[in-house]
Structure formats: structure tokens, C-alpha cells
């Protein structure tokens, strides 16, 4: 079975799963885990968008 993800969807699932693991392993309490996981996810996706727009500008 094969799957063809777009670049964005690949980045999305990567950010989602990596953030869950980071949240669980880097914080002590459940509340902090959720908050840190959301922070990591936002940083991952923000990085993707910033890098995408930067490449768009460089191409111009």
C-alpha cells in the first residue's frame, strides 16, 4: 500500500506527531504537556509557512 501526500500535508502530519511526542516527553504535568505540544505544533507550522513565503519571495 502506498500513499502520496502533498508537501503541506506531509509537513502537517510530521508536525502533529512530533509535537505530541515532544509535549509528553519534555513536560511534567498534563496541562504543561498540552501547552508545550500546542506550542511546538504552532512553531512547526509557522516555520513551514514562513519558509514557504520566503522561498516564494526569493523566486521573484
Amino acid at each position: 500500500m502506498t500513499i502520496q501526500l502533498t508537501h503541506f500535508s506531509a509537513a502537517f502530519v510530521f508536525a502533529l506527531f512530533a509535537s505530541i511526542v515532544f509535549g509528553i516527553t519534555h513536560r511534567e504535568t498534563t496541562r504543561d504537556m498540552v501547552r508545550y505540544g500546542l506550542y511546538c505544533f504552532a512553531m512547526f507550522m509557522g516555520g513551514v509557512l514562513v519558509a514557504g513565503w520566503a522561498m516564494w519571495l526569493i523566486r521573484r
Partner: protein
Amino acid sequence: MANSTQLKTKPAADPAQQANMMAVVAPAVGWLIPGAGHIIQKRWIRGLLLLASIGSLFALGLMMQGHIYKANGGDILDILGFIGDLGAGGMYIVTLAMNGGQGAIAFAIADYGTKFMIVAGLLNFIAVADAYHIAIGKKR
């Protein structure tokens, strides 16, 4: 009488000894099956989330026709790729045994798959370290 009662009752296992054993068993089991190191220490939700996240990342990497690295002594990037893949433990062993992860050079997305599997292994290393910290009491 008192002596015979003492002989009959089995001495409880030393908590320190149990903790020492768990400090070895939890990381080993956690490496073999992602999240299992947490599950055997009764951190059910954390363990299941780790299993789902790391397992999904590895499975998606395989489905994207990513390449899996075998033990090698060649290029440094190949060696590092092998170390990353090795972190996935049981999933890596099963994939190798089933001759999976051959990689499709023709697709750019297959290269993402390769990275997904390496990162799954590296994340499992972090999860193993976390299971160890729970076992020694450094983390709740």
C-alpha cells in the same frame, strides 16, 4: 510460634530493587514497542499516544515508499540514517525481516518517507529516555 509465622509470610519485594529492575526493563520494552515503556509503568494515555504517534510516523514513511537504512560502514549520512532507523526498535526489525523500505528514488515524496522513518526512530529514543526517567523517579 512467632518464628513459624515469619517463615510462612513471603517477604515483600524491595521497592528499590523493583525500581532498579524497571529502570532496565522499561527502556528496553519501550525501544522494542514505542510507548510500551510508559504503559508498563501505568502511564496508559501517554504510552498509547506515543505508540500512535511514533507508529503512525513510521507507517506513513513506509507507505510513502521511504528507504530504510541497514547496518553499514560507508557514508556518514548512511550511518546516521541507520542509527535513526534503529531507534524504531521492533518496527525496524519487522520491516527489515519483511524486506520492506526499499525506497523509490523516482518520487520526491519517498525522500520525505525516509525522513519520517528516521525521525520516528529518533523520537522513540526520546520516549525511551522519558520512560527511564519515570522508572528512576526523576519524572512523575
